């Protein structure tokens, strides 16, 4: 366990942080799982109380808290509305670690292990996986029902619907045709971008080049979020150290940011200091690193973007990644940029900040709840009669691709950087 947390009120023990919840209940309607189920166990207040009772040793059957803690999306919406900003997501993770619930599912657990211990092996697994999906093998496998048998209903659905797996990974593509090198920024290659959405990374790099000139691609390992959420803290710390060292070795100029186009990774990189509260020297290095990290949306200066109609036709809406809105407070930046580029075509999505149900591995562990949240997200997209949804995190992209395909195929989802790239004047 982390034992100590960085909260809005300063550094606190996990117990103090949990006890800061006064049970006022103001969080309840912000919590997608409470709204969906109406169950106190599935509310932030309930989860905070359970973690507190676990720490106090007042639960006879700690396992009974499993479902409450495993069903948390970790979206952080509760913390935003909480008067004291109680960090429920961090507390839930502490609770899971307390119960040694390493992962709600073996797939993310295995992935997180491999990402630390043998990234090249993991990447070749993914290459083969992508190929299987492209060849339709996964669809065939799905038809046999074996995935369902393995408890992988969600994966089965995903396999049946994701027929657009990339033919090569971002790093391979960049190795084949490297972009111009400079030092105006460092690009952090997120695993999701690299392995599943390389075209997002290519777009981000083109836009960054347009807005800020040439930069550098950091040869970074995984940010460690997968380990932090589903694996071991030691693994997360090891990855954080490697990232910090790698960054320090790059010696970028002081005003060059580390840019990340997956909001989940960006939020986690910004939270590195919390991993090192007991190691003063590393804490300072982590703080220095975190202060340099920018979510891709934060790099866009609306004044510097050319006005026009923006790419595509019809209404454009923004779906906020939880880790952008609640994890980093990034809300106005993408809106200002999209409005600058597309004017009135940009509309506000009702409940734009509600989680889509992707939430990392949530879709594996709680497929039904995940699907309920997805449907209500798609319903609000349809209400806005949107033709384009912009997202900024890998798990949102995966979830929304799937949801739109089934429920509202008139609309497409792309990453903010892809749409900005399409909207900018043609460049060579």
């Amino acid at each position, binding site marked *: 366990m982390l034992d100590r947390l960085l909260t809005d*009120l300063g550094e606190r023990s996990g117990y*103090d942080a949990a*006890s*800061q*919840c*006064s*049970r*006022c*209940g*103001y*969080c*309840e*309607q912000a919590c997608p799982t409470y709204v969906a*189920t*109406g*169950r*106190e*166990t599935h*509310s932030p*207040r*309930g989860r905070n*109380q*359970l973690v507190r*009772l676990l720490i106090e040793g007042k*639960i*006879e*059957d700690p396992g*009974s*808290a499993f*479902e*409450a803690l495993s069903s948390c999306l970790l979206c952080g919406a509760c913390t935003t509305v909480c*008067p*004291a900003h109680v960090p429920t997501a961090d507390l839930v993770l502490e609770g899971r670690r307390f119960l040694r619930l390493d992962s709600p599912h073996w797939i993310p657990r295995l992935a997180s292990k491999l990402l630390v211990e043998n990234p090249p092996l993991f990447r070749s697994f993914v290459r083969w996986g992508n190929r299987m999906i492209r060849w339709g093998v996964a669809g065939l496998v799905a038809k046999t029902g074996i995935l369902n048998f393995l408890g992988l209903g969600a994966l089965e659905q995903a396999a049946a619907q994701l027929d657009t797996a990339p033919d090569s990974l971002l790093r391979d593509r960049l190795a084949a045709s490297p972009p111009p090198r400079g030092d105006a920024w460092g690009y952090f290659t997120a695993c999701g971008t690299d392995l599943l959405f390389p075209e997002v990374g290519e777009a981000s790099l083109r836009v960054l080049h347009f807005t800020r000139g040439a930069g550098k691609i950091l040869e970074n390992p995984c940010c460690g979020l997968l380990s932090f959420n589903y694996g071991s803290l030691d693994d997360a710390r090891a990855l954080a150290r490697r990232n910090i060292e790698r960054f320090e070795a790059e010696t970028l100029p002081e005003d060059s940011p580390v840019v990340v186009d997956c909001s989940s990774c960006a939020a986690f990189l910004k939270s590195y200091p919390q991993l090192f509260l007991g190691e003063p020297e590393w804490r300072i290095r982590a703080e220095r690193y975190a202060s340099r990290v920018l979510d891709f949306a934060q790099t866009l200066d609306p004044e510097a973007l050319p006005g026009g109609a923006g790419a595509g036709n019809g209404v454009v809406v923004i779906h906020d990644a939880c880790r952008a809105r609640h994890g980093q407070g990034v809300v106005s930046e993408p809106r200002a940029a999209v409005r600058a580029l597309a004017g009135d075509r940009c509309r506000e999505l009702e409940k734009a900040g509600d989680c889509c149900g992707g939430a990392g591995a949530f879709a594996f562990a709680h497929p039904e709840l995940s699907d309920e949240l997805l449907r209500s997200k798609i319903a609000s997209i349809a209400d806005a009669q949107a033709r384009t949804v912009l997202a900024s995190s890998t798990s949102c992209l995966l979830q929304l691709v799937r949801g739109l395909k089934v429920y509202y195929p008139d609309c497409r989802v792309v990453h903010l950087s892809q749409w900005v790239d399409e909207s900018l004047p043609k460049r060579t």
Partner: protein
Amino acid sequence: MIEFHTLRERLRGELYTGEAELLTYAYDAALDRSRPDAVVVARSAEDVRRTVAWCAERKVPFVARGAGTNLSGGCVPLRGGVVVSLAKLDKIVSIDTEKREAVVEPGVVNLHLQNALAPLGFFYAPDPASFKVCTLGGNIGENAGGPRCLKYGTTTHHILGLDVVLPDGSLERFSLEDRGPQLASLITGAEGTLGIVTRARVKILPLPESITTILASFDSIDAAMGCVSDMIAAGVVPRVLEAMDRMTIDSIEAYLPCGLPSAEAVLLIEVEGSKRQIERELEKVSKLCEARGSGDLRLATDPAKREKLWEGRRSAYAALARLAPNVLVEDGVVPRDKLPEAARRIKEIAKRHSIEPALLFHAGDGNLHPNVIFDERDAEWTRRVKAGGFEILKMCVELGGSISGEHGIGIDKRRAMAWLFSEETLALFRRIKRAFDPRDLANPDKLFPLEGEPPPEGLIRPAPPAPSDAQNAFVERVREKAARGEALTVIGSGTKCPKNLRGRGEVLSTKVLDRIVALDRGNFIVTVESGVAVRALKAELEAEGFFVPIPLTLGTVGGLLATCPWLPLREAVLAMKLLLPTGEVVEVGSKVVKSVAGYDVAKLLLGSWGTLAIILEVTLKLLAARPDIPNEFPIPPKPTPGPVFARLQNAFDPHRLLNGWILEDSDA
């Protein structure tokens, strides 16, 4: 161990018995905890009915729960049993803008109703601080208030009808339009001790044309409160009239600097209406503020700028909730003109208990909220805060106020009920509870001191004015009849009785009770005996510049209330002194403009035609300007005998002595 599978298989909704579930339904937003044995998440009114019927059969206690934001322990299952969650009964069934009403299920979140009404140009008036999460069912149970209830009244003023599952599992529909006593008024604010509401018909109101917000600062609490009294006396009825003291202001500014003036007290005033009305009121308000030395007056009409003025007030709780893990949000009421004294005495009490309350008032109706931070893990600190809070309630009673303006009694204040009400009154409340819930299963051990629980020290209620000789003689006469077990007919001046009334037993007229008992000019409240003629009362008050919002009819005040030909007259009724057919005298309600303590027997009796109790005195709210009230009415129908009515009779008139002719004469 209770076996729940026979219940589970009867439900559409879910039933949980896991430890995590039981632990998280053990609390609300107050401090007490007690585990239920099971939790039912109801998915239909029928689920609620089946659950209650199942519980009734097996003598298992049950407690209804909405969002669990209760501040007095109201939804904590003290004796275990089943928590019935209404959170998923969350449909807005219909909205009728023509009839100005909406039908909702109890789990609808207050804000969700507001959001559905706003595009139609309407709103629902009660606005408790937790409106973004709390449910309408919970609001009904607690008779919740909020800043806007200065102008619009607490929840009970907005309830037109309720579907209620009674503790025996029967489903009843109560409407204000029903002939006979107002059962919907009894259920509202009963904190789930008489049944569970499964559907409500609520009043909706058109949005005001325009609203202006004013922030005014003052050199002292006295000056600010003086200004509040001046406004009410000048006939200004603001939509909102909030006050904060320096401690609150400072804590807000420390958390979220939003430019609140550095002052001893700040008033946040909102006036609404047409542009012209607002201009007129603004002129009055600013003159009155200046007269009390407020130099700094900030105005805003634009919604964004209004929000800016509200920012500080809205952050008051958050600012405190960050300073310590817990905040006691105490809730008491004093007569409006006693607020400065109350503020002083709160300071003294705080000093004695070494606590630091920050004061927030709904100043317009004398409702005060001292907010005290603490850490519940520190037993000694918690004890001091609780003791201080309790003493503040005692002070409210001493000043002639009430122990709750809008949060309810629950567990926290049940002992303090013995300060507010006499043993006889509490006994009546208990008889009502027993009449509806003989097995004591519906939210047991709430609202009243437990049997055998020692009353808090000292009888501190201010003594009421001594009754007149005529009243004494009247009471004596009824007692004699009661002692002999003889039937009795009580009328006012007889304007609504048949010409050749042959009552059962002796006919007594209340016309001898013809005194105006007390006119509280500062607080706009009058207490009158029930035999006073309506015309005489209105004339006498109007000569002094006061207007009582009841219709100008023939006959006595008591007769008007007992027959209730015009429903909105209920909004003027604050308290009653009653003579029960058993000879006991009880006082119900509170002589302040806002109180939610105890069963609302005063409103229950409207339309009861003297079949339950004899009204001796009534306390009414006054206005400074003439209200627009119709004066011609048909004589309303008399009560219909029936099973629910019989339960009420059991509580009030077990020997069926009073006004039997009404029921015999009833044309049902």
